[in-house]
């Protein structure tokens, strides 16, 4: 593993630590406004400066790891559950249902995902809980296509035939025998999906449709800072850097994991 990969892993672990220990690490509250100290540039007191309500940006970036983890975990779980359930069943049983489902997945994938997410948020209304659903659903088609491809290859393996011969039911074969064997590629994909989920949440919050104040979401911080860009660029630069570094780290770890994966699966991923 290279230095780059180690750095990326460190960043991700660092985010976990910050999220757990935010109360002890953050120097100030993330929500308490201080109107005497609005939009102050970085100083010794406020290392990353303050935002338009005088809140410490460093503290908000640190507390921001909590909504971040919430978004990653919930949206990836939704995407992987819906997607792989459809993909696995469709790929395992084949037939007409598979043909129809594949068409639907194709149709969804030919949509720019941002439009799906936007439409869902428009239906459900703004808010972080709704954004994770939108991201989860919009990203589900990726897992559906991947798991379908994987199970089509995997169901021809000897051990599957063996358990069929031993009288195992389809449900048992899919979830007890095949799923553990194709979990690797799904986990790799989950890493990439985590990266895009972060970008999604930030983008939707940036459009004003995601997290609502005073949530310290990095995307929302950017949304709030963009009006003060001329006088206080620091308020926009640091949350953006935090998003960038996190997404980059997830993508680098994903790439590293993919390179170590079973070559049998490498072709199916991309």
């Amino acid at each position, binding site marked *: 593993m*290279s230095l*780059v990969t180690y750095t990326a892993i460190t960043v991700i672990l660092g985010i976990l630590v910050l999220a757990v220990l935010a109360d002890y690490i953050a120097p100030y509250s993330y929500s308490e406004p201080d109107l005497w100290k609005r939009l102050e540039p970085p100083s010794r007191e406020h290392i990353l400066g303050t935002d338009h309500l005088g809140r410490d940006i460093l503290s908000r970036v640190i507390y921001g790891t909590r909504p971040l983890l919430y978004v990653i975990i919930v949206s990836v779980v939704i995407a992987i559950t819906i997607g792989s359930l459809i993909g696995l069943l469709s790929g395992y049983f084949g037939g007409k249902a598979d043909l129809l489902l594949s*068409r*639907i997945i*194709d*149709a*969804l994938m*030919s*949509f*720019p*995902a*941002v*439009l799906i997410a*936007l*439409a*869902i948020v*428009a*239906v459900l*209304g703004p808010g972080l809980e709704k954004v994770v659903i939108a991201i989860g659903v919009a990203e589900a088609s990726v897992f559906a296509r991947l798991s379908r491809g994987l199970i*089509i290859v995997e169901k021809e393996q000897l051990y599957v035939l063996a358990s069929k011969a031993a009288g195992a039911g389809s449900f048992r074969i899919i979830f007890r025998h095949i799923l553990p064997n194709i979990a690797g590629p799904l986990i790799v994909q989950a890493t990439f999906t985590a*990266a895009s989920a972060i*970008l999604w949440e*930030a*983008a939707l919050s*940036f*459009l004003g449709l995601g997290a609502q104040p005073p949530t310290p979401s990095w*995307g929302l911080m*950017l949304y709030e800072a*963009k009006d003060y*860009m*001329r006088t206080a*660029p620091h308020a*926009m*630069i640091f949350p*953006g850097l935090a*998003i*960038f570094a996190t*997404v*980059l780290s*997830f*993508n*680098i770890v994903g*790439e590293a994991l993919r390179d170590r994966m079973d070559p049998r699966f490498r072709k199916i991923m991309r």
Partner: protein
Amino acid sequence: MVLSYIAYRVSLYIPTLFIILFITFLLVRLLPGDPITVMYGELEPPPEARMALEEKLGLDEPFIVQFILYTYRIFTGDWGKSIHTGEPVVELVIRRFTATLELTVVSLALASAVGVTLAYIAVLRPHSLADRVIGVLSIASYSMPVFWWGLILIFMFSVNLKLLPPGGREGLESLVLPSLTLATINFGLISRVSRAAMLEVYSQDFVVAARARGLSERRVVIGYVMRNATVAIVTLVGLRFGILMGGAVITETVFAYPGVGRMIVEGILARDYPVVFGGIVFVAIIVMTVNLIVDLLYSALDPRARVTRV
């Protein structure tokens, strides 16, 4: 063989088109708040006016009838009028589409030039320091939050240096920043895929033979490796083109650029059903058509790909 492949691909296209029509129809009908309430704003519309409008907009028909009517209208070119401005949606979409098309073509050309050049440098010495730096740069490219990068560019080039307009669409200058933004987040994928495609060709016999004949490494890469990797690169750029046609929503918003993506967002916020509908369906049709063309092109360039897919 060729004809049957084309027929097969086109036969896949039609049901997908219907599914898209149905999904968009469903989604937009699920939006909260009906357009009439939105048109009247805070005022309560008089019942007669409401009924007349419902009839005019076809909102009083049963769900399925509305869908069939809608599909019929799509195919006859009657996409309705914007509830707010009264402008025919087809005209609106086409006007906005030209703006998006300009942006997409310029930024993808830029991204491809940078991406392929980087891949070329990387492939000359695989696993060297240069290759690894380019690898990280490429991942950084698609890890970039696009709106943030857009804001940074606005801050640098219009607020500080006062060189370029921060948004809008007047003259060529206003195209520079948005296309730079989009090119930045797209060159990475192009460079990674090009590198992988080139490396795959790299070790093949005809390349080894060319090298054995004493050709310089540069000529081997340009004349033999790149040429054979073109298919993969063209495919990727084609697919990105489709995605950007509708997916440039955020860039268009940051730069107040009047493209299709921004039109759809505005439509959603204003509950302008015909505009949202028209926009999404239009984008989906464009994306699907581009994908179809890319696929057919691929099979024309590389006969091995003509095997019917699972």
